[in-house]
């Protein structure tokens, strides 16, 4: 990637490539080694309540990626003009304006999902990932790199969110994005609760009856606890030694 960028622009060889190894690391690191949710413990607040279904989780992830990316970009552009004493307020105003844009856009584009997410869209403002990246990275780095870092952290957050949602939707409702996947199909289920269906998509494991625990908010906690367990047994350096 780096070589291509240099070849394309021989005149600006002394400049760093647009998307080099450092940028790649910024984008990939948050997906595992430095995941905002499972390692840094940031941004759990506004997230877990929306993960009982996949569709709202995807919308939420896109919204967060947008906000982390652009708030990092704008903060980084303004970083030399923001006085240190009011930087928190300045950052909050940048984030709040972006979230307002997201909220109005979602209200216009997809009202049912907007209703479903209710206050959680507004709560992206207080999502610690956004604030944390601004403080830790965007205030001290160049705009492009800050933007990539913001997108990377948004992706890391979104990946976990969608993973939890997939587990919860399949086991809690027997569906994925609303399509029947396991358990008796919907029409059958409404007449014959817990009765084996004959065939067809949506009755793959017809004996399966939905686990209502997975729909409860508490299940998100169990799923994420188990995710952390799996990640840390695979990635031993993350184990908490204290």
């Amino acid at each position, binding site marked *: 990637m780096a070589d291509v960028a240099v070849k394309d622009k021989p005149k600006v060889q002394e400049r760093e490539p647009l998307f080099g190894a450092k940028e790649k690391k910024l984008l990939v690191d948050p997906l595992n080694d430095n995941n905002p949710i499972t390692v840094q413990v940031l941004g759990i*607040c506004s997230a877990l309540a929306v993960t009982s279904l996949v569709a709202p989780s995807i919308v939420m992830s896109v919204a967060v990626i947008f906000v982390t990316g652009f708030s990092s970009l704008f903060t980084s552009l303004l970083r030399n003009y923001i006085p240190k004493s009011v930087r928190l307020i300045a950052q909050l105003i940048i984030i709040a304006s972006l979230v307002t844009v997201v909220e109005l856009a979602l209200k216009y584009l997809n009202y049912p999902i907007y209703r479903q997410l209710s206050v959680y869209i507004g709560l992206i403002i207080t999502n610690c990932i956004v604030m944390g990246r601004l403080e830790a990275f965007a205030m001290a780095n160049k705009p492009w790199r800050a933007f990539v870092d913001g997108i990377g952290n948004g992706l890391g957050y979104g990946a976990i969110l969608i993973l939890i949602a997939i587990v919860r939707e399949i086991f809690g409702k027997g569906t994925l994005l609303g399509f029947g996947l396991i358990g008796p199909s919907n029409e059958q289920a409404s007449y014959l609760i817990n009765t084996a269906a004959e065939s067809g998509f949506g009755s793959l494991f017809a004996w399966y009856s939905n686990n209502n625990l997975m729909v409860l908010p508490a299940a998100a906690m169990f799923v994420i606890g188990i995710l952390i367990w799996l990640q840390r047994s695979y990635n031993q350096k993350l184990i908490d030694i204290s």
Partner: protein
Amino acid sequence: MEFINIFIKAAFVENLVLAYFLGMCSYLAVSKTVKTAFGLGLAVIFVLGVTMPINWLINTFLLSESGVFGIDLTFLRFILFIAVIASMVQLVEMIVEKFSPSLYNALGIFLPLITVNCAILGGSLFMVSREYNFSDSLAFGLGGGFGWFLAIIAIAAIREKIKYSNVPAPLRGLGMAFILTGLMGLAFLSLTGIDPAALTAAK
């Protein structure tokens, strides 16, 4: 009576942490010892109890169509709410620094981070979407803060004890805290369906 009903409902039945996952970041990060958890819990009660009525006033008299300006300014809601919260947190920070320097040091970065504690902003947004009136919002703020306080004290006490247990290494610390929170959430779930209004009406 309505005041007590909303207080109890916000504190137990619809606990901000255990039913809505609000304020999770500081809840997980500051719950290692009971002492700091206690201090942070008190700060959250105060900030929630103060910001909710102020935000109610702002929402009703400045932002709504029937307010001072006569136009619908609700798109400014997020920015104004977060500004009120940030200034209140600044106030609490100054008070704590003056009266209890040791607690101030123990809370460290998490005191300014109350600003981005989702429970605070979430409370204000719930207040708007549920159309509470002034005393309701005060009750919801105090009750919600009290519920948050209870939850963080409980998890801190459990985590102090569980340090001596033989938890599988990858699950130690954070992973266990999540699972414990889930179990506590299930326990609090048994309170759902209790309607405080019906109980007081029966008397």
